[in-house]
């Protein structure tokens, strides 16, 4: 038996997990569980085995069967109407988010769903967004059947409260692409028309057709001026209204000067104008804007609790009947039933059943917490084990956790970060430009009125800091990509700049500094003999209690048969092995007097053999790999910890973080938010918050930059500025340093673009600026800025090892 285990560990044909000791053999294939086998059989029956040919073991484990009664709420027409995007007499269309999607097999199977359910007319996958657009015939099938089918084959769609918040206006910003397209079209054609101007032998051509070319150029430039370039003008106007100067103000003056001077030149027949430069500038700057706007489609940075909470819940009526009710309509006093793995949507009192609440997402607490009848259970926890009955004591939006979102931080629109480098540079730019232009005017007016006007307008034109405005988006856009390669995903390019200014780092403890899935188990007490250890392990193996499982995972060895096994809710276990009576459980259960209990702040499990208490197990947090390195590198910054947990780990944390760090325990979500606020306002710090749970959501939002740490980036993470894959946690300090370095790169790029501006300005004040100079200087400056930004970030990333 053991030899076979070592040499031939079989992996499940469906999901690729190890099959363990006893693989289920069917159809000449091995499966790890009945769930996987059932999916295989379903696919095989419908001739869908191509699924397994595209990728090896593409399936999703079927180990966690879900009760299909869970989807009863989808039969409710109200819920249905909220989820469906389009409905006609025959068909319904809707889009599901399926986080489990991971390979081309998934795409294939999901697009062949119609073979499994003839009521489904069409499915189209968008892999990057992990979405499935689905059309079904509502006479042949129902929404519930579709969802159940998806769940059965392992692709349970994430249907959350947020989906029913009314139709999401999928404002995929295509505007920028339209603008780019039009500007590009105009740029190409205008340049073609302007080209004869720049060559000697075409003078005759220009003589005959000059005005025709000019009018055509105006025609082509008008949509660019009124549509493509509108964003720059409105942004500059907004700035003026708020008495702020941003980078778009000098850009706008430059563009206005360019356009109207060209218009004047062409209409009065003075010359060909600068329309090729004008359209080109708008085109290049829109590319910069496009870079700035790009974000990660697959990730969602703006989730609140509604994306985590379920849509509906089972409510028990007075006569004991069950019915599905939308979570939003839940009222104080309602009795609800929560089944295994379901989420508690509102603060409630436990009425019946054994509650083991897994708060891992809310507080980062790694162990499920046991609750007894009469205790209040806060919303956001997940029940593990049997189904329980609760009475709602607070409405969903008023709960301990959810009231966090009533804070003003969340209602406020994303603050405009006006103090960015380019905006500050823009301010000086406009001052210098106006001074130079005025100087030129003063110098030339007494001498030559014509040159005076020309010099004045050309100064305004050349001073258009387009290269400057491109520097930031390009440097930051490439930085964002470098970070993305290292599994650190930023919401937008502006985050880089905020990261660069950070001087204080605040960590959440549980789940952020510690590894949520692991806990160190230590045994304290009299040494156990091999027989005793085996006996204890045998008893523990019979229990599904998470703590029992934790301990038994940490123990090795074989098991022996257990007789008379019994489990007492909230107390412990008892069982007889080889004549030894083993009892495992809480101190109270084993009768350990209170004064003799040790480590009461920690989770402890006592064991006794034949009525004699031998010792106890304690659980320690396991700190993440690389934490020491990260903390060492962050020495120059102020470090603080905010934990929702009690202070039993204080000594260990102090050792890790050093004496200067601030440690705060027993912090509620609102307190965390207020702490960050205090740091920002009173001490004027730039705060980086690193957290993982819903309880950090307020702090993440309040901080200058909030990073959500996630073990799986597609899973739910609270609203934040960046998502960091837990794997890359040890690179955190590198990311911060690199952000700072990019600011130097931006300054260097500014310097490069300034060289062109100085050359151009010199020519402009001398009245030598002509369309051809503009046509040469403009593309060279923008292209060299783009190239410099791209290459310098690549080089810096290589040097920094990212």
């Amino acid at each position, binding site marked *: 038996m053991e030899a076979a285990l070592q040499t*031939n560990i*079989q992996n499940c*044909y469906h999901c690729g997990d190890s099959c363990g000791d006893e693989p289920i053999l069917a159809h*000449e*294939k*091995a499966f790890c569980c009945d769930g996987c086998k059932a999916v295989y059989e379903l696919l*095989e029956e419908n*001739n869908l*085995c*191509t699924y*397994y*040919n*595209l990728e*090896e073991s593409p399936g999703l484990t079927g180990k966690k069967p879900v009760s299909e009664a869970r989807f009863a709420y989808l039969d409710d027409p109200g819920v249905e109407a909220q989820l469906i995007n389009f409905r006609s007499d025959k068909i319904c269309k809707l889009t599901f988010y399926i986080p489990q999607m991971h390979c*081309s097999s998934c*795409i*294939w199977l999901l*697009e062949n769903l119609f*073979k499994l359910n003839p009521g489904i007319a069409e499915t189209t*996958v*968008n*892999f*990057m*967004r992990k979405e499935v657009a689905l059309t079904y015939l509502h006479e042949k099938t129902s929404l519930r059947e579709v969802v159940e089918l998806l769940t059965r084959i392992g692709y349970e769609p994430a249907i959350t409260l947020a989906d029913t918040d009314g139709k999401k206006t999928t404002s*995929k910003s*295509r505007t920028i*692409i*339209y603008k780019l*397209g*039009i500007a590009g*079209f105009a740029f*190409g*054609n205008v340049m*073609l*028309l302007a080209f004869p101007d720049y060559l000697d032998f075409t003078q005759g*051509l220009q003589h*005959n*057709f000059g005005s*025709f070319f000019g009018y*055509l150029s105006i025609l*082509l430039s008008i949509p660019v001026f009124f549509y493509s370039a509108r964003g720059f003008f409105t942004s500059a106007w907004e700035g003026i209204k708020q008495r702020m100067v941003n980078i778009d103000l000098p850009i706008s003056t430059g563009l206005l000067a360019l356009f109207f001077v060209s218009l004047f030149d062409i209409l009065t027949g003075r010359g060909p104008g600068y329309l090729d430069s004008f359209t080109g500038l708008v085109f290049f700057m829109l590319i910069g804007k496009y870079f700035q706007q790009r974000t990660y489609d697959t990730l969602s940075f703006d989730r609140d609790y509604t994306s985590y909470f379920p849509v509906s819940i089972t409510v028990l009526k007075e006569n004991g009947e069950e019915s599905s009710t939308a979570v939003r309509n839940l009222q104080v006093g309602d009795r609800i039933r929560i089944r295994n793995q379901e989420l508690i949507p509102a603060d409630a009192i436990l009425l019946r059943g054994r509650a083991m609440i897994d708060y891992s997402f809310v507080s980062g607490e790694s162990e499920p917490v046991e609750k007894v009848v009469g205790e209040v259970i806060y919303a956001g926890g997940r029940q593990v084990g049997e189904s329980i009955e609760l009475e709602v004591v607070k409405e969903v939006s008023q709960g301990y956790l959810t009231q966090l979102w009533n804070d003003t931080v969340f209602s406020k629109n994303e603050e405009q970060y006006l103090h960015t480098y380019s905006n500050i540079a823009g301010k000086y730019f406009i001052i210098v430009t106006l001074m130079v232009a005025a100087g030129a005017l003063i110098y030339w007016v007494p001498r030559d009125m014509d040159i005076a006007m020309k010099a004045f307008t050309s100064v305004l034109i050349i001073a258009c800091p387009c290269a400057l405005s491109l520097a930031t988006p390009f440097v930051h856009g490439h930085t964002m990509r470098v970070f993305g390669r290292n599994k650190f995903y930023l919401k937008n390019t502006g985050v880089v700049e905020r990261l660069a200014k950070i001087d204080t780092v605040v960590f959440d403890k549980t789940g952020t500094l510690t590894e949520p899935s692991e806990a160190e188990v230590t045994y304290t007490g009299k040494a156990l003999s091999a027989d005793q250890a085996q006996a204890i392990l045998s008893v523990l193996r019979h229990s599904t209690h998470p703590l029992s499982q934790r301990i038994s995972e940490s123990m090795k060895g074989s098991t022996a048969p257990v007789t008379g096994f019994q489990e007492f809710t909230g107390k412990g276990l008892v069982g007889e092995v080889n004549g030894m009576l083993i009892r495992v459980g809480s101190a109270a259960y084993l009768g350990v007097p209170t004064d003799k209990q040790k480590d009461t702040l920690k989770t402890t499990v006592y064991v006794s053999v034949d009525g004699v208490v031998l010792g106890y197990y304690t659980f320690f947090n396991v700190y993440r790999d690389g934490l020491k390195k990260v903390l060492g590198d962050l020495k120059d910054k102020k470090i603080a910890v905010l934990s929702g947990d009690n202070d039993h780990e204080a000594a260990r944390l102090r050792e890790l973080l050093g004496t200067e760090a601030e440690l705060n325990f027993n912090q509620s979500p609102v307190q965390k938010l207020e702490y960050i606020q205090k740091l920002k306002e009173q001490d004027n710090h730039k705060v980086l918050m690193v957290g993982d749970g819903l309880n950090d959501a307020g702090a993440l939002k309040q901080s200058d930059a909030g990073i959500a740490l996630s073990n799986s980036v597609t899973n739910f993470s609270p609203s934040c500025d960046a998502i960091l894959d837990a794997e890359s946690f040890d690179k955190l300090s590198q990311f911060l340093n690199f952000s700072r370095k990019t600011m130097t790169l931006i300054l260097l790029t500014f310097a490069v673009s300034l060289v062109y501006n100085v050359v151009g300005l010199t020519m402009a004040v001398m009245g030598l600026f002509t369309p051809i100079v503009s046509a040469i200087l403009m593309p060279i400056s923008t292209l060299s800025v783009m190239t410099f930004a791209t290459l310098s970030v690549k080089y810096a990333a290589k040097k920094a090892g990212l």
Partner: protein
Amino acid sequence: MYIIFILIAISVLVAAGFLAAFLWAVRSGQYDDDYTPAVRMLFENEVGGGPKTDKAAQKQP
């Protein structure tokens, strides 16, 4: 040389045609997903009821 008016008119019209095609492509969502179609085109079209060949089965140890 007046042929140039016609030539330029044609060239601008052709370019405008491409612009329209581009705008239509963006509007119809062809730029929304740049990954899945590349994978999708590699799937073989199967005729229903074909023989159940299972190549992957042979890969199993």
